[in-house]
């Protein structure tokens, strides 16, 4: 039996997000908009031993196939996450998340004088870029750069 199956049981159908950096699983759920109002069963394993990562987190969402476009948003904080779409206990599709070029309504601009932080009917827009292997986001409105993306999740 594989190591992670000892921690979180297999699911019959749904989405498994693996290789999340340890401690970031809750942020992954936040990005995906999964909370107490979500009907599906969500299980989470934190600090699971991993050969590649030392420790990692795993999230399983039973009965929900999350769209690839949505899942790619988690690359902002978990760039090496792998996704397994499960059907009838078997892996139907497996892929790595890809960084989106633009994210809307996920990050909050740290510049308090930015229009995106005003009372206007405006959704934050950030362009995602990679420089020297580091991910950063640039505000569409004021141009402010964010390096620690996890600190600015809405």
């Amino acid at each position, binding site marked *: 039996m594989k190591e992670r199956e000892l921690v979180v049981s297999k699911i019959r159908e749904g989405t498994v997000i693996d290789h999340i950096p340890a401690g970031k699983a809750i942020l992954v759920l936040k990005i995906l908009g999964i909370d107490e109002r979500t009907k599906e069963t969500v299980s989470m394993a934190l600090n699971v031993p991993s050969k590649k990562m030392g420790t990692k987190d795993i999230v399983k969402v039973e009965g929900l196939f999350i769209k690839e476009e949505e899942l790619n948003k988690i690359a902002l904080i978990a760039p090496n996450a792998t996704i397994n779409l499960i059907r009838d206990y078997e892996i139907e599709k497996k892929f790595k998340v890809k960084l989106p070029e633009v994210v809307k309504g996920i990050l909050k601009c740290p510049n308090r*004088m930015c*229009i995106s932080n005003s009372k*206007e009917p405006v959704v934050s827009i950030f362009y995602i870029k990679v420089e020297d292997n580091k991910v950063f986001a640039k505000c*569409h*409105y*004021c*141009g402010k*750069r964010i390096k620690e993306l996890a600190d600015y999740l809405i």
Partner: protein
Amino acid sequence: MMKHLISIDDLKKEDILKILDKAEEFEDVALGIRKCKILEGKILANLFFEPSTRTRISFETAMKRLGGEVVNVSAQEASSMAKGETLADTIRVVSNYCDAIVIRHYLEGAARFAAENSAVPVINAGDGAGQHPTQTLLDLYTIRKECRKLEGLSIALVGDLKYSRTIHSLIKALTLFKTKIYLVSPEILSLPEEFFEELNGDFQKAKLEEVIGEVDVLYVTRIQKERFLDEEEYKKVAGSYRITVETVERMRSDAIILHPLPRVDEIDVKVDKMRQARYFKQAFYGVPVRMAILSEVMQ
């Protein structure tokens, strides 16, 4: 696609040069020597949520010189208009009354947001500490006219490099013209780190006395009291740089001094008569450059 002018980032080098060339053609119209009515029947709305004199008047003059009409909405009227109404709605309403909008706003990114909600072209006349692209275009025009070239010059940017939107716009444009840029400011008013990360330019922090004899252009800015939340912080740096006759005497005779105005006491009035002083000429150049911009977005 509708043309807006929001940030200098939106322009390529050839777009900038096209506007400067066009401004050159309008200079005699700006002086009242030649008549030109290419914008006859068009209406420009000046929507200023922050006080402005030079920029607003120069847009108004530019529009009128080209035969167009202007509707001015002052800071007081704009804020009362915005009472209970979002900027998005104000723009949707005003853009139905006119052919282009010039906006100045205290929030960064407001002009881009306005453009997204407008049915007519929007020109950014300053958004908080963000961008001021029309000032940059007139600065470049002045440099090209007065130094007879734009490429390969050296410039010292002096004063508030942190909050000055004029500097933030200008510095981006200067990197397109292989300019050697000296940054002269008090430490707390240094250029924000992201400019170094983002721009591939030839920057160097310097002291004024080290570079004064070398530069082609001395660009002086006002330390803006209104950008400081803490008055004590302002007092620490107010008056840090003062350009006097003695300072200018150490400059090259063919070098020029620019200032986006208004000045407080950064440049001694005695300097005004010296050959290097070009800031009032720079203010005039705002008219032909804004004529070029208006004709570009409205025609």
